[in-house]
């Protein structure tokens, strides 16, 4: 009994190493005093970060990413709230069909979505490629995550609270504002953070739908072609990794805190487990 326990634990430890080792190399080499990402390590330096901070094109790309991520996360969450309420309360007919359609971006390859958006926006609607087109595509991509988070939060709410509110004379809107919204706020914040991370890290849609203004991942991809730009790519990549990790942990923390009310199996999961 004891031996089996330790075998599985050893496996889990190895798994975590496999999972994190390649990614940890980025920050490791970013502090290494060498223009190539090679062993043995030569010495500690911050010069790659200094070089990166002076790169104006990169700062512009960062601002673009922040703008797209902020707008996409706010708009997606604003759309998800009524959608999630309609779906959990079964206010809409064919809610199963609507939910599966919302979940489509999770299973359709990004490249297909990217070319589909390219056709719709550029060829049919004649919109010029810009940050706007990226934002629109990111809203589609973020919608499944946002709707899932809000639905699991709404699932855990006690319906008698809303009933009590309307019995006491509140309008539908008043009940939403004074009862539902305050109770789902952790879900809303978590949704905002998740959508922001998704948009901030997204590459394929942004790559195909960006005009002259690249987002940070698109800029980074452009830099990959130049071997001498590798150190600043490593520095930038490390910062992006750290930033998204902090946001993920923050978002998970907010979502799990006082979520004891929603004890469904999937409530604990960061991604929908049964989208198929």
């Amino acid at each position, binding site marked *: 009994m004891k031996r089996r326990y330790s075998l599985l634990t050893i496996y889990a430890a190895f798994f975590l190493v496999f999972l994190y080792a390649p990614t940890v190399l980025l920050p490791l080499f970013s502090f290494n005093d060498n223009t*190539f990402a090679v062993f043995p390590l030569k010495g500690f330096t911050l010069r790659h970060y200094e070089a990166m901070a002076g790169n104006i094109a990169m700062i512009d790309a960062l601002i673009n990413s922040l703008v797209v991520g902020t707008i996409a996360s706010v708009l997606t969450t604003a759309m998800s709230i009524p959608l999630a309420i309609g779906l959990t309360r079964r206010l809409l007919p064919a809610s199963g*069909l609507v939910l599966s*359609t919302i979940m489509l971006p999770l299973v359709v*390859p990004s490249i*297909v979505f990217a070319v589909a958006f390219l*056709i719709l926006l550029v*060829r049919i609607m004649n919109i010029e490629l810009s940050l706007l087109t990226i934002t629109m595509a990111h809203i589609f991509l973020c919608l499944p995550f946002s709707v899932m988070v809000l639905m699991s939060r709404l699932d855990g709410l006690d319906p008698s609270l809303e009933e009590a509110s309307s019995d006491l004379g509140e309008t539908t809107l008043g009940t939403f504002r004074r009862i539902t919204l305050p109770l789902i706020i952790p879900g809303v914040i978590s949704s905002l953070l998740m959508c922001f991370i*998704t948009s901030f890290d997204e*590459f394929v849609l942004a790559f195909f739908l960006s005009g002259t203004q690249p987002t940070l991942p698109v800029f980074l991809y452009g830099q990959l072609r130049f071997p001498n730009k590798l150190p600043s790519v490593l520095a930038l990549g490390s910062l992006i990794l750290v930033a998204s990790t902090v946001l993920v942990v923050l978002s998970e923390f907010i979502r799990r805190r006082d979520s004891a009310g929603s004890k469904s199996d999937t409530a604990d999961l960061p991604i929908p487990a049964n*989208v198929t």
Partner: protein
Amino acid sequence: MGYGLVALILLVLLAPLIALVVLSFWTQQGFAIDKTPTLANYWSLIQPSDKATVYFGIPFYLKNPVPAILLLKSLVMSLVVTITVLVVAYPMAYFLAFRVDRYKVLWLILITIPFWTSYLLRVFAWKIVLGFNGAINSGLISLGVIDKPLDFLLYNPVAVVITLIHAWVTFAILPIYVSLEKVDRNLLEAASDLGDGRWARFCRITLPLSLPGVISAALLVFIPTVGDYVTPTLVGGPGGTMIGNAIQTLFFKQDNAPLGAAVSIVMMLVIAILCGLFLWAVGYKRLRERSAA
């Protein structure tokens, strides 16, 4: 009025895919697009030819064999990725469900973080690991194991498969974990009381009851990896290209968007049919009902 609203929501959500379908029935004539609906793009994908193009010993009697070959290659590569991912993910999900008592949230977050961090960067990390001047080569050289860099690590289908496994494995753990958590612990106790050993108990109770999660995990990994674009582009090289690269080439380099749209749709249809057949073959509905009972 509910139906009107639902129809509107569906129309907005599906608009890009509808546009894709419409375009696939048009044709590219030089710089212009001929909007007469036709099946010409689809026909060109299956148009037979007397001359066979042989790929891996399989003859393709097609006039334009590239999309068909790349689709088949992508399906095979994704299948290898999916099977390996399931084998790697299952023990980890089992560990999370049955062995972790304290710090469960911490473990779940550790498993989740890679899923949320940049896909591009995680793939790029493999380029650094496997590259000619990469971590493995320079590490082995400085340890004195090899004299000159191994050049078979990067830019081939194996590199693509390894990278995809690493990128998608966390996606598979979660559904398996959920189905393992749902397994009624009384059943396990009953099996032990009735004389089943550890393995018999696992094979007769735990594994069958967790199959719905395994199947969802398989589909969650298989479906998106067939059309993956970033991984073959960064670590695949000329030999590691997949169908996603073909779609990109048709849209941008060959400037034949309608044909690219047709290839995308055929790819999704083939994936959908394969998944449908798979679910039917394993009797997914029955499995789910049994696990729910």
